[in-house]
């Protein structure tokens, strides 16, 4: 599966991961326009049926079929339910059990899309794997670098931070140079069946369903008390796993003054700490420790350096100082205090356009009080 740049497009097989959405549809369209030997493949990662007993993935697969027929490319499906369950969903549950807020998209990219699916594509004689991600790859520096998508609003490198050189060296991101509105325009001009399809939101396996209900099917909820940092009981919570740091909705605390926010969780005592005001000081931190760091470059990263970072998707870059510790740990110090940095989420590092890599946030360091609890 060599990355042979001498190959003509028509002799270059590109397997496109197609979800039935507009982004992957346009990716396939652009590659086909460029003359590649394009093969569309739909991944079925989750087994669920609707109220009529019809598999919930059916609609998306049918959209893949319609688009592939429009493009006159072959389409296939592949089933990764088992791998997804073991590698992504178990992690998702384990993280919630540990009181953290997992990011299944990061794990899905690392374990499924750019591992199981990449292997599958390569077993089909593919030269490249393409997806509809908003990111770019740059081969000009010897190594492959992953760059942000030019559409800052849609850039998805945050979710791709856990990939390795091996995983991205044969990858194409045809949408990386395009702003999202232009992608929609291309789809409309080409009259693709998915041109007006709504973008999917939320976590893929939960879909449109109620998150709380979904999670309660898999994890027992332990209701407990909701307290202020001074120990005043403000009500009951339904189970710590249902709440995220910085969350405002769903607390059910009325009364005068500023709105209430989740500011901390105490897993041991099963207490949800709440405080008043978006800018409650207890929500702010000055640094974090993250684990399982991944550097996209095989050369790794310096022991200590300055760069920018994101602690959640779509956040503005923040200036940070990174120090590498033992066993894949990194200590990150923020130039400015950061609100609601959440354990379980990814911290992703950037040098200008280049995504350097990332790690999973383990501990958050707050001002003047090591831990709230």
């Amino acid at each position, binding site marked *: 599966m060599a990355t042979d740049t001498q190959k003509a497009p028509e002799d270059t097989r590109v397997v496109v991961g197609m979800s039935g959405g507009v982004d992957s549809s346009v990716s396939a369209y652009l590659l086909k326009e460029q003359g590649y030997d394009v093969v569309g493949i739909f991944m079925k990662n989750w087994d669920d049926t609707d109220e009529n007993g019809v598999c919930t993935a059916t609609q998306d697969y049918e959209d893949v079929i319609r688009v592939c027929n429009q493009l006159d490319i072959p389409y296939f*499906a592949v089933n990764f339910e088992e791998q997804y369950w073991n590698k992504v969903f178990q992690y998702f549950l384990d993280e919630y059990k540990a009181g953290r807020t997992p990011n299944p998209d990061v794990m899905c990219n690392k374990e499924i899309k750019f591992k199981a699916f990449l292997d599958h594509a390569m077993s089909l*004689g593919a030269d490249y794997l393409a997806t509809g991600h908003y990111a770019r790859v740059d081969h000009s520096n010897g190594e492959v670098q992953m760059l942000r998508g030019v559409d800052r609003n849609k850039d998805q490198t945050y979710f791709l931070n856990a990939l390795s050189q091996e995983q991205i060296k044969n990858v194409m991101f045809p949408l990386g140079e395009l702003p999202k509105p232009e992608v929609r325009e291309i789809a409309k001009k080409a009259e693709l069946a998915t041109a007006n399809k709504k973008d999917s939101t939320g976590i893929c396996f939960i879909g449109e369903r109620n998150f709380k209900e979904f999670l309660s099917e898999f994890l027992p909820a332990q209701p407990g008390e909701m307290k202020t940092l001074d120990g005043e009981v403000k009500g009951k919570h339904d189970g710590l796993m249902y709440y995220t740091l910085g969350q405002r909705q769903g607390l059910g605390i009325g009364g005068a003054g500023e709105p209430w926010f989740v500011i901390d969780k105490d897993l041991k005592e099963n207490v949800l700490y709440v405080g008043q005001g978006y800018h409650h000081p207890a929500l702010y931190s000055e640094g974090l420790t993250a684990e399982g760091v991944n550097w996209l470059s095989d050369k790794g990263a310096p022991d200590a350096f300055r760069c920018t970072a994101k602690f959640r998707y779509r956040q503005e870059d923040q200036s940070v100082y990174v120090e590498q510790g033992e066993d894949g740990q990194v200590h990150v110090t923020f130039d400015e205090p950061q609100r609601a940095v959440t354990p379980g989420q990814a911290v992703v590092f950037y040098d200008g356009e280049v995504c350097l890599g990332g790690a999973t946030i383990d501990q958050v360091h707050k001002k003047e009080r090591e831990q709230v609890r």
Partner: protein
Amino acid sequence: MKNIYVDHAATTPVHPEVIEAMIPYMNEVYGNPSSIHTFGRKARRGLDEAREVLARALGCQYEEITFTSGGTEADNLAVIGYAMANRENGNHLITTQVEHHGVLHAFEFLEKNGFDVTYLPVNADGIVSVKDVENALTENTILVSIMYANNETGAVQPIQEIGAFLSEHQAVFHSDAVQAFGIERLDMNELNVDMLTVSSHKINGPKGVGVLAAKKELTIQPNLYGGEQERKRRAGTENIPGIIGLKKAVELMETTRNEKRALYKSLRETLLSRLQEADVNMLVNGSHEQVMPHILNVSFPGVNVESLLTNLDLDGVAASSGSACTAGSIEPSHVLAAMFEDSNRSQSALRFSFGYGNDLEQIEEVAKRTIKIVQRLQT
């Protein structure tokens, strides 16, 4: 690279002579056979002739032929239609675990509606035991449905024996013979069956036509309500072009059946021995003796069947495995699951099925391409 079609158990190309025969029934003889004018009479004549040809082919009487929209509708009509109309005689039904979904899901529907259903197991060859049928039978049994030949493995069931045994019992005997039609001679009297399902598109006829041949004394509740066509067993204006196509396909089949069987047998043996000679890990699924000559089902342990099928298709070989779910991914085969405990075996199973247009040269090519892919995927 030329595409090679070895999925004739799924569906078949329509024979050119069948197409020729159908055309006049679309542009000239377009009347409704129920109409009492010249146009209607001409269509009716075509319909009657087709009914006669089918009755002769299946060893039944003219009025015992009911044209349907296909095998599934005929299966549903036989299973649901007979059970619902004869409930007062008993509540127990017998079938096997390896039936086509057109039969299996019909029984599941009846089960939900209060019937007791026995789903008989099969042995590792995919064959049901006559003894098991005997043991399952009760005085409440009103219907037994067992397929003639399995669509995934080609395994042929002991229909005649079971039929002979059942002739002493009140239970009527239905057999889905869709996969055997066109290759095996089917005579309802010799087979001792009361109802038989066949389909047009598996024998180089058009899609959308099937037949339920059912003894005329049987009471069958229709699945469709409307006009009085097909002796009230199946309402709706008859699909005349399709039925004419089926008639022609049957006539062609009657004259070519023996040579076809010989050809498919040699194609099957060739493919099998090429695969066996090659350096690949392989298991044959289904009986070696009691098997249809046009189906070869093999497992390649350690190979993911989705990868295998996709690779084969990209290399121009159209084969199949189990059935695809509505989201496109391959579902584990209920047939192989009934035969083997090892789920890896069914997850790596591939079905080749031969038919009109296949020749030895093609099969050598299929063997070559398959071996290359399997060797790559097994390393």
